[in-house]
């Protein structure tokens, strides 16, 4: 039942594509939101770096801790 998948050459796209899409949406939404928002907790450029550099988790911690909702 385990099929041979070479991690780098023979990627199973049905498996990987959804994750790439989710990651892409998260980064894009986070960046658009970061540009539009008035103020963040802490400097904006820092959140920009976090969103871009930290895979997947970056945008999420921005949404939870960086945004100011009021």
């Amino acid at each position, binding site marked *: *039942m*385990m099929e041979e*998948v*070479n*991690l780098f050459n023979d990627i199973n796209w*049905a*498996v990987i594509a*959804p*994750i790439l899409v*989710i990651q892409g*949406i*998260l980064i894009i*939404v*986070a960046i658009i*939101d970061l540009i539009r928002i008035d103020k963040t907790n802490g400097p904006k450029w820092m959140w920009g770096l976090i969103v871009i550099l930290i895979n*997947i988790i970056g*945008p*999420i911690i921005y*949404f*939870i801790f960086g*945004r100011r*909702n*009021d």
Partner: protein
Amino acid sequence: MQWWTLFQKELIENVRNVKWIWVPLIMILIAIMDPLTNYYLPQIIEAVGGMPEGAEVQLPEYQPDDVVMMSLGQFSTIGVLTIALISMGTIAGERNSGVSELILVKPVSYMNYITAKWASLALLVLTAFALGMAASWYYINILYGDLSFGALLQVLFFYGLWLTLVISLSIFYNTLFKTPGIVAFLTLATIILMGLITTIFSHVLEWSPNYMSDYIQQMLITGSVPGELIGTAGVTIILVILLVFGSASIFKNKELAG
């Protein structure tokens, strides 16, 4: 009418602050994390340099129901944490900033105010959870084997009740405290405490909501809904109702300024 106005405002707010985008995405990630890493574990181990000489990993063959439990396991930790964090300021934050002073001097029914907040949170969280489990189901079917749609629905229903209880706890603490951090902390602490009490008094607390996952697993293995799961679901629903009504009555008798 007024309830609908309050509910709509919550929905629009969660669209504008992009919660309706990222909460479903994070729930999907939570749900598919374990199914994927477990499936690709051999390749991952190889990619990071392989096992030392002589060490042999015997990876278990996972069945679809094991994988469902992996996803639920992640929901019960990271998922619950996420819910506590996104809901901690829903009322506390409004009281803290002072917006509630403008809203609650209007003839707003406190019951409407609380239940609209509760319902909009539940809608967001349960939709996100359902999408997450649907993603998990997708991977289970292509990587591990068949899991029936009916079984998925049952999982969604029963585990959804548990998540609704988490939301209700958060709403409850939201009416008691003005600091969002304290609300999140107490929500999480209560869930952990409930778990401890359930473990200690396991012989009398057969229907404790904390057993929800265990009974769901039983249900998946046996293919039929165990009586304990019905009991647990009932207890959970009663707790949810008590918490929501309790929140409204606390709010009614509370001084809303100062």
